[in-house]
């Protein structure tokens, strides 16, 4: 969620019981602003918090002029001092997917690779690398996975210019209440996967400036999103069941929307049994 609207937004996502203490909120108000100044971000998003066993990571993302470009990610323990995380690579994500269990809360903690996959460990030893994964890499990979899998925006909030860059749509006035209850009004804010597979008939109805992303309708498994109206029907809250803890809110007919993650950073692989 946008750093500037953090306070109001936290009230809207508090339905899940997770939030920030007043101390953290106050600290974020100023530290995110300073982040924007130091790193020359155009937008700073407070991404959320991953609970480790011994401590929690608070994550912020910074966006440049092209909102769809890879984002810079920073983490902090106290919401005051931030450290830049390395960008995510495919190997990192692949390795981190095999890790299970909670985060420890210490970025230099090393997961023994031998426990996970003996073959890969041997291969790595031959290569000359150590068969360990640092928690920092796991953190980066997890954030990347979550963003890619369940980072969502309402339809029409962003437009794609003919040059390919993505900007906020100044004409976006918010979804209507009926639209807001449908999953097809929300898009994954990441490289589209299913867009090309649509039939010609479907493609004909698309507006290439706003419909350039995958919608949530065809997410697998079906039913991995809950859509609820909270606060007496004034806020639409989407919660992901695949990554428990990701909450997206939108106030219909206004420009307020955003998502945040408060959770343990583990994928819910039992989802098919639970629905």
């Amino acid at each position, binding site marked *: 969620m946008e750093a500037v609207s953090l306070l109001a937004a*936290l009230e809207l996502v508090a*339905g899940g*019981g997770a*939030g920030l203490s007043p*101390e953290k909120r106050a600290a974020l108000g100023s530290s995110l602003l300073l982040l924007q100044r130091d790193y020359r971000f155009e937008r700073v998003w407070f991404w959320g918090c991953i609970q480790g*066993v011994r401590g929690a990571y608070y994550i912020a993302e910074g966006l440049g002029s092209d909102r769809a470009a890879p984002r810079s990610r920073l983490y902090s323990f106290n919401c005051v001092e931030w450290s830049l995380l390395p960008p995510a690579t495919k190997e990192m994500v692949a390795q981190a997917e095999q890790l299970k*269990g909670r985060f420890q809360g210490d970025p230099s903690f090393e997961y023994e690779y031998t426990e996970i996959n003996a073959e890969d460990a041997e291969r790595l030893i031959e290569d000359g690398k150590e068969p360990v994964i640092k928690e920092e890499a796991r953190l980066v990979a997890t954030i990347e996975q979550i963003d890619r899998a369940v980072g969502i925006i309402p339809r029409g909030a962003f437009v794609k210019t003919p040059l390919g860059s993505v900007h906020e749509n100044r004409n976006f006035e918010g979804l209507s209440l009926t639209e807001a209850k449908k999953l097809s009004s929300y898009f994954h804010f990441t490289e589209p996967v299913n867009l090309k597979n649509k039939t010609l008939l479907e493609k004909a109805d698309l507006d290439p400036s706003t419909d350039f992303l995958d919608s949530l309708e065809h997410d697998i498994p079906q039913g991995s999103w809950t859509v609820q109206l909270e606060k007496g029907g004034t806020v639409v809250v989407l*919660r992901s*069941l695949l990554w428990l803890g990701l909450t997206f809110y939108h106030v219909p007919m206004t420009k307020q929307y955003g998502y945040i993650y408060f959770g343990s950073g583990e994928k819910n692989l039992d989802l098919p049994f*639970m629905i």
Partner: protein
Amino acid sequence: MAEPPGEPPPQAVLRGEGQERGLGEHLRRADSPDRPEPPQWGPGQPPLEGFEPEREPRQPQPSEPAPASYRYRGVRRGSEPQGPDQDPSQLQDRRGSVGQTRAPGEAPYQWQSPFQHLSDPRGAEQASPKLQVPEISISQRDVLGQDSDKAPEARQSMYQSYALGLDPYQTQEPKPAYQTHVVGDDPYEADEPRRGPYQPHEPGYGLYQSGYSPYDDQVPDPKSRTLAIQNAKAYLLKSSTTSGLNLYDHLASMLTKILDEQPTNAVDIIENISKDVKWAQFQKKMDTLRDEHEILPTFEAAEKRKALFLQANGEGDEELEEEIGETPLPNVMETAFYFEQAGIGLSKDESYHIFLALKKLISVQPIQTCRFWGKILGLEMNYIIAEVQYHEGEEEEETEEEEVIEEGGKGMDEVEDEDEEKEKEDEPPKSTYKPPPVIPKEENGTGANKYVYFVCNEPGKPWVKLPPVTPAQIICARKIKKFFTGRLDAPVVSFPPFPGNEANYLRAQIARISAGTQISPIGFYQFAEEEGDEEEDGGGGRDTFEENPDFQPLSVAEMVDSLSTWVHHVQSILKQGRCVWFNPFQKSEEEEEEEDDEEEEKAEEPDELQQETGPPLLTPLSEDEGIQNIPAWTAQPSTNLIPQHAVAVLQSNRWPGAYAFASGKKFDNIYFGWGHKYSPENHTPALPPPVQAEYPSEPEITETRDPTLEEELAFKAAKEAALAAAEEEEDEEDVEEDEEEEDD
């Protein structure tokens, strides 16, 4: 302005045209020696006029300038090279003319004013060979030397608008290009603007009377410019066949909107503005219909919430005093404040709504103690849960109902047995299956059913009481993992099949969570009989505890550092599904009568069933097992910056979402989550049991393969060998041979 030498040929061509048309004999005459003459008043007026047509409104001028300019094409050209020196407006004018030369073959006439075009559209078409106008326009612009100042986009946009027929330099101009096409169809129309002699010195001047000219059947219009404007406007006012809008109104409303709102970078969002204006046309009609049913759900919910704030009627002063004195209502806001210090909790107004909803619950039900237990999230709706204890004596109504149901069931069994005895002879073999004994649930007010739970989906909605939990439900709930939907009557589809619906599943999970995560600071509660004594007591354990009046709170640092400063104050649930172990094999008298043979078989089993014990009440948390290498609880102070006012906060790692805080003498537990236990391994549902054997497998009924020929022969040979051996030993060969023959 002497003519440049390069002039004559085009002029000649033009002159030729003039001749073709047969109009404007004065022109011809003008071309001859009188040439210099017209420029006298020509250049003075017409060029100026010709240069300024855009700026001045269409004045009703005699079309003097037109033929003059036509004639003075050369003059104009002569002035052409002055380019950079001339007024930008004049150049603009020229550019405008350039821009307008759309039809091919207008190249030589680009330097004419648009006015000129109006006067001679046809000529423009016919005169010159087809050239590519845009390119020449470019070169012209370079000549003019002004476009270098402009950004290339302007040029492009000009071309774009040019392509669209809009000329940026002539916003108000008619579009002669269109006009030419329109006008060019009729061979006579082209001539109308220059019909007849208009100047006094021209012969025939004054002879032209309206109604008598050979061209009177066409609309007379000395004001070619106004005509052009009217035509253009008429075109713009044409309604679209598909939408009923017309471009003129659309452009007007769009420009009005832009001027009213003055957006930044309007040119970048002009298409969006256009779209919005078009949408606005239609939205008004549809709004009234659409909003009708959209508004209802939010308004209804708001009504319900508002009802919470209205005080109940008929409260006398006495009752008010009672409320203020001792009320079971918990101070939800205070608890919310402490949890908020740790970043846990709902938003303030939701907490307040829950506060009011609890107050309503208390006013309806005879409740002794009440606590906000927490919130469980669901797929369609969420659950807000209140933990409640009735006054003593109030619960009995519920238990009576359930006993009635149980007795009814027993009656059924007896009837069935009688039927079976009658039909024993014809019956198929009775199944020897005995279902495992049903473990009865615990009494209300004890064990897992110590508290009664009320749930509602949202504050403002009515509270629903959850049924008490049975051990079978707890055992099954341990094996399944399902999301809650939010509807209490929803079925729970799972394997092993859950005995009950979502209300039962919810109750079972609440019981498990409470047993696992309800904790308090050590010393807050003590056992009733002995103060501060926590010794174990055989198998029964202690069930009851009470608040310790001499409780001395420990500091926050101590509470956080060591887990032994916290204790569970809810009994843990045994594997059996109850808090107090129940021996299912203590036979009642009825059961002994029914079971005959089976009892003996079963008599062996009770020895194997061990009494289950669990950790006794008020066990410190340090005894809690962690999962793999993760401790069961994570303890943190709420803030490191202001330790003197920090709150000790514990999070459960086994039940993610369960929190507890302690600050001084205050403490509380709460749950916010999905209602599931944490397991690092993936959930594997129980496999269905293996297929049961229908009958025992014995050699008599097992199939074997038939012996092959070789085997039979071998067998026979072996037998004969044995016989031969036997013959040597014994003398009675005949008997054996007979036997052999019989075997074959």
